[in-house]
């Protein structure tokens, strides 16, 4: 059982959720209210990580912050090590790759809030921010939770991108998914089976708890 890899995966998934979800709330809401003609294009760009093979994503990410890229070089000069093959690089990649998993459900959640309620909120003296906090979020929160859970679960399972951008460095970028792959390659099936079971249990628990919670509070609302 590779505890270090498990810890790393949980940390990566948690940080991704914590950073990405607030961003997704603001952008999801913006998109839900947008009347721009370019909206379909923006939505398509957001959905890209869903359809691109992980290797393509990994390739582009590596070009974006590998050693020879502007971003990579700035990072190197500030922190003394590369952005790729580091936990921070992995976190950045994870945030980018999970954008559709977070933004899409949240956007749908905000779209489901009747526009009249926002108007009523404005007429009742609430600024857009207040309206988001007091009216829209309390109504759209199951969607936010869905986005968070999907992001968490997806990050735990992410393999292709992690391998390309992370390099499977123990303690730094060797997530549990990679560790399982490694164990299989080392003919250590029992260890691989053990870790797979843990991952499965964590995923099922997270998702079930979330759905239970959302039903409970959903009932309270209606």
């Amino acid at each position, binding site marked *: 059982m590779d505890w270090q890899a498990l810890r790393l995966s949980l940390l990566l998934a948690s940080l991704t959720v914590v950073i990405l979800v607030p961003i997704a709330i603001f952008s999801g809401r913006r998109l839900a209210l947008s009347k721009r003609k370019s909206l379909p294009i923006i939505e398509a760009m957001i959905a890209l990580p869903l359809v691109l093979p992980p290797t393509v994503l990994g390739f582009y990410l590596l070009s974006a912050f590998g050693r020879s890229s502007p971003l990579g070089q700035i990072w190197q000069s500030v922190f003394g090590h590369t952005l790729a093959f580091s936990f921070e690089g992995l976190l950045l990649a994870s945030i980018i790759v999970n954008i559709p998993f977070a933004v899409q459900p949240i956007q749908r959640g905000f779209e489901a809030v*009747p526009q*009249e*309620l926002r*108007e*009523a*909120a*404005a*007429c*009742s*003296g*609430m*600024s*857009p921010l*207040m*309206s988001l906090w*007091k*009216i829209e979020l*309390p*109504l759209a929160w199951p969607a936010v939770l869905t986005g968070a859970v999907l992001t968490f679960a997806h990050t735990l399972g992410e393999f292709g991108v992690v391998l390309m951008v992370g390099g499977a460095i123990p303690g730094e970028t060797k997530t549990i998914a990679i560790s399982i792959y490694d164990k299989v390659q080392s003919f250590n099936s029992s260890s691989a089976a053990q870790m797979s079971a843990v991952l499965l249990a964590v995923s099922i628990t997270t998702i079930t708890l979330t759905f239970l919670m959302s039903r409970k509070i959903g009932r309270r*609302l*209606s």
Partner: protein
Amino acid sequence: MTLSVRLKADLPIALDLSFEVKAGEMLALVGPSGSGKSTVLRSIAGLFHPAQSEVTANGASWSGLPTHQRRVGMVFQSYALFPHLTTLGNISIALKETGEARTIEARRLLKLVGLSDVANRLPAELSGGQQQRVAIARALARKPDVLLLDEPFSAVDRPTREILYKEIEALRSELSMPVILVTHDMDEAQRLADRMAVIDKGRLVCQGSLAEVALDPRAMRVLGLRETGAVLTARVKAQETDGLTRLEHPAGVLFVPQIREEIGTEVKLRLLAHDVMLASQRPSEISALNVIEGTVLSITPGDGPGAMVRLDAGGEILLARITRRSVAALGLNEGSKCFAVLKSLAIARDRVHR
């Protein structure tokens, strides 16, 4: 506290109008669907931004101000109550006060609309009429400079509507600000409002007192001939024993189905033109109880078989719509004396009020 509105736009809906509403006055904005009534309200609230918009409320210009900075109270057609907040919560959230003062004020408004005993219910647990009252209380919680009512009673059944009308009338003392009521129901407009403005295709066709508008031919064209009618003022004389009330009018005696008003009260009656018959002699042996003397002021033939006859009945205008054939047969001309005949039962209760 006067509200002054001037709007101009081309897209997506054509608008070109201006009007004023005084403090404590209720203006009914009537017109066919698509005429732009809701758009006018939304423009005043700041939810819609026409190309040119000058809205001044209580001396302050609202142009450029976002909705939440305008002290506007709006009651939506579908109430738009916040589903996750209780009745009390819906009202409280619009209040500026905090802490103890907030609860006290919220409860006061709740009492005002008669919902004290459902304070902790969620909107989904309330009836249509109750939800409407919460919406009104919430709008008032804002201490608005302008109160806007967007067809607030259209989703409610008739009996509930009656109750709500009475509530609004009772609330009038609380409503010291200008109020605009958008409706497509002429009777409702007449019942609740002080003045009326008729809107068609984004333009004001006419505005004025109810009686003035009721007679205006331009309004007639917009609202349709079926809605055309006149308003007569009469005084309650007696409550008869057979379920009728006797009214006195300079042009004659009127009987209407019983209305609960005190003797001596002045009431207004809305008489639809197509309910009014004309006779060149006072008719007898006829079931209709209401016969009024009048003098023909003008006769306007329509495109079809009808003609609109304007009469002077005891100093007030009365409209009668009859066939052109009858006009000829009765020999009616300007200045002719004639009698207007109305069935008591044709004067529905909701067309008689103070």
